[in-house]
């Protein structure tokens, strides 16, 4: 145990205790089995009442729309997160801020794409994740070039540093937005990784694993999604976050790939990714690559609860809760659309 961990509880003991309590509220396998059996959304509501969610839907008139459930789930998470953030002290507070940056990136991209498609800003505002909202966010629509965006909107936000590499882009179109998103994420993940390494101790270990996985997942996804677009191999390689296990050799290999099969071959050389690709497919009975990645993410995040005195659990808890929300919404959608064959495709957590 390093010296910092002896003093961990002085500042963060309360929050860690609280969080571990919240962790026990994450739905377990039996609760999922019960949820899956539900016939209607009302049943689902009744069933969720028996879990840690309690009465969170009690003031909603039936029939409840799935979007309402989604919104309520999200606002619950936001309340919890805000509580953590308000009680946190350095360096945990910065760590928690880092978690919000990814939501900020998503929000900006959402707003830019939205304005590009001539949507009303008020309508887009509601779609933004509350964790990633910041004061300047809604004036995104004045920006027509990345430089504009940087100068007018982002320069004061924590994302400014990440955005520097994107200023050279000439205008905002669909492809460029994707590139901006990915380079923002690349810079963000690398920065976050560096931040965690500077904290050191168990935080560095746990977050190192999680962020390395996150980086590699992005590299794989970028590669697969870029097939058939005009993105060159060089440009593509620039988007890969460099803090993962694939770095550097694997990323070179990925940059050269031209189809899915080649990506799979690259993954073969890394045992942890080989297994993900091995079970993935689009045929019935197989899980999509995305789901396989989610499963692995859940596994990694669960493991972070095995250690004490580190910040990784805060990140993991948020990720697991996000996954849980996705699961509940998935199940609710399946029930609402009477499409029960795929209802089991949720990703159980504990």
């Amino acid at each position, binding site marked *: 145990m390093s010296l910092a961990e002896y003093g961990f509880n002085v500042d963060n003991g309360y929050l860690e205790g609280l969080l571990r309590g919240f962790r026990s509220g994450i739905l377990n396998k039996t609760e999922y089995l019960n949820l899956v059996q539900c016939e209607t959304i009302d049943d689902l509501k*009744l069933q969720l009442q028996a879990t840690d969610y309690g009465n969170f839907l009690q003031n909603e008139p039936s029939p409840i729309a799935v979007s309402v459930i989604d919104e309520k789930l999200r606002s619950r998470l936001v309340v919890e997160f805000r509580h953590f953030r308000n009680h946190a002290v350095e360096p945990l507070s910065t760590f928690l801020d880092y978690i919000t940056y990814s939501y900020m990136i998503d929000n900006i991209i959402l707003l830019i794409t939205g304005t590009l498609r001539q949507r009303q800003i008020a309508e887009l505002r509601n779609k933004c994740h509350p964790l990633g909202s910041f004061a300047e966010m*809604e004036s995104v629509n*004045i920006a027509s070039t990345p430089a504009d965006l940087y100068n007018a909107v982002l320069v004061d936000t924590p994302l400014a540093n990440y955005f520097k590499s994107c200023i050279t882009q000439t205008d905002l179109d669909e492809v460029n937005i994707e590139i901006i998103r990915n380079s923002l994420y690349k810079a963000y993940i690398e920065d976050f990784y560096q931040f965690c390494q500077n904290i050191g101790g168990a935080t560095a270990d746990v977050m190192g694993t999680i962020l390395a996985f996150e980086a590699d997942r992005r590299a794989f996804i970028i590669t697969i999604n870029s097939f058939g677009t005009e993105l060159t191999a060089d440009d593509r390689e620039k988007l890969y976050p460099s803090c993962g296990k694939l770095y550097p050799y694997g990323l070179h290999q990925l940059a050269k790939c031209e189809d899915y099969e080649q990506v799979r071959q690259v993954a073969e050389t890394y045992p942890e990714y080989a297994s993900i690709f091995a079970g993935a497919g689009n045929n019935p009975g197989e899980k999509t690559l995305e789901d396989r990645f989610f499963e692995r993410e859940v596994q990694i995040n669960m493991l972070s609860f095995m250690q004490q005195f580190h910040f990784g659990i805060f990140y993991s808890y948020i990720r697991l809760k996000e996954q849980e929300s996705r699961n509940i919404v998935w199940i609710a959608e399946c029930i609402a659309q009477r499409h029960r064959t795929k209802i089991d495709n949720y990703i159980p957590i504990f």
Partner: protein
Amino acid sequence: MASIFRSELMTYAQLFLQADSAYACIREVGELGKIEFMDLNPTTSAFQRKFVSEVRRCDEMERKLRFLNNELEKTNIPILPCGNVEAPDPQIMIDLESAFESKEQELKEINVNKHSLKKNLLDLKELHHILQKTLVFFTEAGQGAMRTQGAMETGEEGKGAGGLLNDDELAGAQATKFMFVTGVIACERLPVFERVLWRACRGNVFLRHAQIEEFFEDPNTGNLVSKCVIILFFQGDQLRTRVKKICEGFCATLYQCPESANDRLKMHTDVANRINDLQNVLRTTEDHSNTYLLDIARHISEWQQKVTKIKSIYHTMNKFNLDATRQCLIAECWCPEDDMGAIQEALRSGTERSGSTVPSILNRMRTTLKHPTYFRTNEFTGSFQAIVDSYGVASYREVNPTPYTIVTFPFLFAVMFGDAGHGLLMTLFAFSLIIFQNKLRGVKDEMFGMLFSGRYLILMMGIFSMYTGLIYNDVYAKPLNIFGSSWRPYYYGANFTLAGVKNSTYYTNETWFAKYCAPTGPNTSIICNPSPPGTVCNYVFCNPATSDTKSLCNLPTEAQRRNQPYPFGLDPIWAMSVNNLIFTNPYKMKMSIVLGVMQMLFGVILSVINYIYFKKYIRVIAEFIPQVLFLLSLFGWLILLIFWKWVSYYPDATKAPNLLITLIYMFLKFTSTSPDGVTEYSVFGPTTSVASIQSTTQKILVIIMVICVPWMLLMKPLYVICKRKMAHKGHTHSVSADGEDVEGGVDGEVAKLKDGDLKQGASKKSAVKAPPSGGGGEHGDDIPTGELFVYQSIHTIEYCLGTISNTASYLRLWALGLAH
């Protein structure tokens, strides 16, 4: 009639209810509140049960009621309470539903109207403020601006405000058109807005702002927000779109502001009029909604109660089984033996009221299930029972320690509290709670609720505190001199000066006390020393004023002391004396030990009552007897020594041996035969012969204690093993006969000393939170031999360590008494 000393006799019963009368029967039984229904379908999930749709309808009704309730809270309309309302018939549910539905709809409509009215009003008010504030801007600008006023534009954005420019610029920018927009923005967003505006427009926009003093109510959330008027000046259409976009992004509302001062003035009055009109309309709408809400407020608590009751009835019915013909519901339940008649009566009236001809049947069943513990409490015993339960609920038919706790708990509190004055306040407070209890019952505050439910407890504590306070002679931390102190100043030596007067006569009691012990007396330090006069005495009666510390004084004469002890409690002189603490501390410490050991002993005795009641005689021999011996040979002996020391070393306690050391040497010098060690710590007397009696007794006691440990540890498991073997051999003797003995190892004593809190001494023995004792005997055989030993050793260790540590804990009685 079940006695208050044990829990009620319970019966397991089966209840056959006709499907059509079930609701009415459960309603009656529910009002009675004497039945605990068992869940007969524990594996069925909530939404698969029979009456789930009814429960769901109730949920929906509750939601509507919550909505109505929220509306009432928003408008601060008080809700009228109502008495106990019976659950309506199930048919009424539809009426209730439709009533709530229409109420909710109407209220929502009213709210929508109100909302739009408020929104309009807000817009108008904002405009009003803009006109007011911009007036200031424009007049400020006015002087310099007059020259550029010539060119004007109509429309939302105007050209003007040339006052922004100084004369030099003006000359060059004659042709440029300045436009402006005006709007309102939330104050907290202003700094960021300004920054973004400056960045996005590269500093080409000029912004003026002014805070509006009034707070606006946000029509969506109802929160009050403070807002600012902004006015932006810029050039060119491109900037205009940009500015408008930014305003949109920051939720700033823009308003048209006319160019000319005249138009503005006209608009100003116009807007003021419209605000007036709108406020009138809004007021009528508010009135309307208020009368509507008042009507709801009259009924809502009744509705809430009804819906809750309907929901609980269906919830209970969800626990029932359907029989094969689906004609009747089968329930299983626990009910107290004594209430069977009342339950039958309730069922009968339920059946009658539902108009059903087939009666409901309550059928007693034999069961091996663990019986629940049910204590009948009233308002007085309720709070005491709650305290006992918080340490663990006694098993079925075990001795209930509550009746004893009613005395011991307040008494032990009072030993610590010990102040008659504060005790009186406490008593009066509790008494007023009791007198006004009917009025206070409705108060919902959580802290007060706690006090209120413990009002009888507080009353008892107050009364006992007054008693102990009088014993300690403490009233608001001052002594009462009711009977006159029994102490007399006694001096010898010719030069004693008291208050400047050479004096060698006795004072009579009253004059002496009045002179020196009254608060107005000279600042004299008194040391009370019970030694008889003539002996050499170290204590001085000193007067700081004369610094005459040499005079010796002994209080009182032997004869006077013997004749006149203070009749009740402590002599008030002690409170004045410097050696007050030296006297009271050992006194209270010893008293704590005596009380504590007595209470523990009492707890052990309660356990034997249980053993005898459940016929576990082996536990009397294998547990109770060694326990009592263990306790008495250590602390019983200590108590004996305490009393001996009190009696035999008065008045000069300086010669008395230290009891603590005596107790320690009882073990450490167990083998010592040297007479010094014995006589030095002999309480009975300094002579060798008496001392050796003490030391011999102590040796015997230590040996008994040591024997008690293996006795507690081994006897019962060995007994059970022997019995099992015999049963195996003979096959004649049923094993279950000793089952309860075996089982006893698991049950009772787990909690015995675990809850080591001194206040709960009485409950220690029997407030048991353990597995079955009454009906569960059959499990006894399953306990493997090894575990028997493990259990028994745990209990033995717990008892032995607990005895010692609890005795130490009882010293808290003294320590807290000191802190008071």
